C-alpha cells in the first residue's frame, strides 16, 4: 500500500514538472512583449532594455529556466511582472472565490445528479424516466457559458433592482453572498447534473440487475431499503470516483463563469494575466490548478485502492 502511494506521489511530481516546463516553453515563445506593457507605448529602447534586465529576461533561456526551477523547488512562485506582488499572495487573494464557486456547484451537481439518477433508474422506461433522459440530453448539449448568459439575461434585472453588485469588479465576496453565487453555481453545475444523472442512472441499473439485489428483494426487505441501502451504496463508487476527478479539473475551467458573472477568482486572474503577458502569474496559476487535478486524481486512486484491492495489483 505504502509503495503504491509513494509511486503515485513521484508520478504526481513528474506531472507537475512537465506542466511547469511546458508552460515555461510556451510563454517563452509568446509574442506578448511584457516590457512594452509595463513601460507603456512611449518608453524608449533604453527603458525597455532596463525593464528586461530587471526582470531577468536578458539572460539566456537556460539560465532563466534554471532560476525558475530553483525558485519553484523552494516553493517560491515568483513575483508578478506587472505590479511586483508575489504570485502566492495574488492567488491567495483570488482562490477563495473560485473555491466557493466550485464547492457550491459541486454540491448542486452531485446531489442533483444522484437524486435524479436514482429517480430515473427506479422508474426505468416510465414517463418520468423519459423526461429525465430528455433533460440529460439538453443539459449535455448546453455549453456552460451559454447557460451563464441565459441566466444572466433572465435574472440580472431582478438582481440589479435588489441591489446585488453583479458586475462591479470584485466587491467583497461576503456582500450578498447567496444572491451573487446562486446563478454562477447553477450555470457551472447544469451540464454536470446532466452528466451525473446519466452516470448514476447507468450504475444503478447495473447494480439493480445483480443477483444479490434479487436475493434481498426475495428476503422481503422493503423496496426503499433495497434501493438505497443495497443498491445505491455500491452504485455510488464509480460516481464518487468521477466526482473527485471532475472537481479537481473544474478549478481550471471556471474562467468563463467568472468572466460572465464578474467574479474576481483565479480564472479572471489568469485571463487578465494572459492578456498582459504576466508570465509568473500564468505559470503560478497553471501549476496550482494542475496541483488540484493531480491531488484529486491521487486521492481518488488511493481511496479507490482502499475500497477495491484489485486496483493496486494492476
Amino acid at each position, binding site marked *: 500500500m505504502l509503495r503504491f502511494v509513494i509511486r503515485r506521489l513521484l508520478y504526481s511530481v513528474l506531472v507537475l514538472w512537465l506542466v511547469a516546463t511546458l508552460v515555461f516553453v510556451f510563454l517563452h515563445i509568446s509574442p506578448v512583449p511584457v516590457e512594452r506593457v509595463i513601460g507603456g507605448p512611449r518608453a524608449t529602447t533604453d527603458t525597455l532594455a532596463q525593464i528586461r534586465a530587471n526582470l531577468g529576461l536578458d539572460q539566456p533561456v537556460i539560465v532563466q529556466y534554471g532560476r525558475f526551477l530553483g525558485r519553484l523547488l523552494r516553493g517560491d512562485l515568483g513575483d508578478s511582472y506587472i505590479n511586483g506582488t508575489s504570485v502566492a499572495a495574488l492567488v491567495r487573494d483570488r482562490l477563495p472565490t473560485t473555491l466557493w464557486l466550485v464547492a457550491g456547484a459541486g454540491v448542486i451537481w452531485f446531489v442533483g445528479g444522484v437524486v435524479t439518477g436514482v429517480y430515473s433508474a427506479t422508474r*426505468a422506461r416510465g414517463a418520468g424516466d423519459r423526461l429525465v433522459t430528455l433533460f440529460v440530453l439538453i443539459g*449535455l448539449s448546453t*455549453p456552460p457559458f451559454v447557460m451563464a448568459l441565459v441566466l444572466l*439575461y433572465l435574472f440580472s434585472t431582478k438582481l440589479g433592482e435588489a441591489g446585488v453588485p453583479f458586475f462591479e469588479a470584485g466587491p467583497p465576496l461576503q456582500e450578498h453572498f447567496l444572491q451573487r453565487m446562486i446563478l454562477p453555481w447553477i450555470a457551472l453545475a447544469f451540464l454536470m447534473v446532466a452528466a451525473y444523472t446519466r452516470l448514476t442512472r447507468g450504475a444503478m441499473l447495473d447494480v439493480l440487475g445483480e443477483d444479490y439485489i434479487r436475493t434481498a428483494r426475495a428476503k422481503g426487505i422493503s423496496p426503499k431499503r433495497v434501493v438505497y441501502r443495497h443498491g445505491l451504496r455500491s452504485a455510488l463508487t464509480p460516481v464518487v470516483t468521477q466526482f473527485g476527478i471532475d472537481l479537481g479539473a473544474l478549478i*481550471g475551467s471556471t474562467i468563463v463563469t467568472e468572466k460572465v458573472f464578474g467574479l474576481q477568482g483565479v480564472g479572471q486572474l489568469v485571463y487578465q494575466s494572459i492578456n498582459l503577458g504576466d508570465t509568473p502569474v500564468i505559470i503560478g496559476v497553471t501549476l496550482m490548478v*494542475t496541483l488540484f487535478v493531480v491531488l484529486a486524481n491521487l486521492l481518488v486512486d488511493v481511496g479507490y485502492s482502499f475500497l477495491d484491492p484489485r486496483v493496486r495489483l494492476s
Partner: protein
Amino acid sequence: MSSFTELDSEIVPVDAEPRRVQGRTPWQLAWTRFRRDRLAVASLVVLALMVVFAALAPLWAHWTGHPYDATFPKTALDPSGQPVGPGRHFWLGADQLGRDVLVRAAYGARISLVVGVAAAVLASVIGVAVGVLAGFVGGVLDTVLARMMDITLALPYLLVAIMLATTFQLTSVAASVSLTIVVIAFFSFAAFGRIIRGQVLSLREKEFIEAARSLGAGNLRIMAVDVLPNLMAQVTVLTSLLIPTSIVFEATLSFLGVGVRLPMPSWGSMLGEGSDVFQTAWWLLAVPAFLLLLTTLSFNLLGDGIRDALDPRGDRHSGKK
C-alpha cells in the same frame, strides 16, 4: 421480444418456394436499425438543414445585400444607436455595430461545423494511432504513450488552450481556424486513445490474432487488417460524440476572444461581442445560443442513435453501454 417476432416471420411454409437468403453486412444491419430510430433520423435531418444553411451563407449575404463584416449604421441602428430587431430588412435583427445577424449566423454555422467535424476527425485519427500502437506494441512504447495521455488529461485544458492561442497570435482567419482545430484535437485525443488502447489490449489476446500470427502476418499487417476493422464501430461512435464537444470547445474559445479571429463571425464570438446589449437586444443572445444548442443537441442525439445502431446488445433504456 421483437427479435422473436422477426424470427417467426422468417419461417416459411415447407411447400412454398424457398426464399433467397440475402447476406447483409453488419453496416447494413446497423443502417436498418438506425432508420427505425426516429429521434436519430430527425436529428440527421436537422443537421442536413444546418449544413445547407451554412453552405449557402454567401447566398444569404447576396440576397440581403449585407456582407457578413459590413456595417449598416443607417438602416440597422435606430436614431439612438440601438440595433434594430428582427424585421423586413434584417430578418433576424442587427447587432450592436449594425451588421446582419442572419448572415453572420450562417457564416458562424460554417465555422462551427467545420471546426467541430475537423477537430473530432483529427482527434480520432491521432487517438486511434496512439491507442493502437500503445496497446498492440506494448512494452516501453506503451508506458510512454499511456503516461503521455495521462498527462494531457491532467492539463487544465482551457487555461493551456488560451495560452496557446495567445502565444501564436494569428492575424489571418484561416490560420486561427486551423490553430483552433489543432488545439481542440490536442486536448481530445487522449481520452480517445485511452479507450482504444483498452480495446486493443483485449483484442490482442483473441484467437484470430493468434491465427493471423501463425499464418505469418507481421505486426503492421495485423494492426491494419485484423485490429483496425474491429475498432471501427467504437471509433465511429466516439467520433460522432466528439463533434458536439468540439463545437462547444470552439464556441467557448471564440467567446473568450482566443478562438476564430474577427471579423469572421463564430457563434461563440457573436455571443461574446453582443453580451453588453442583451438586455435591449435579446436576438443577439437568442439566435446564436439557439443555433448552438440545436446543433450540439442534434449531434448528441445522432451519436446516441449511431451507438444504438452499431451495438444491438446495448439498450438505450437500460443505460448500459
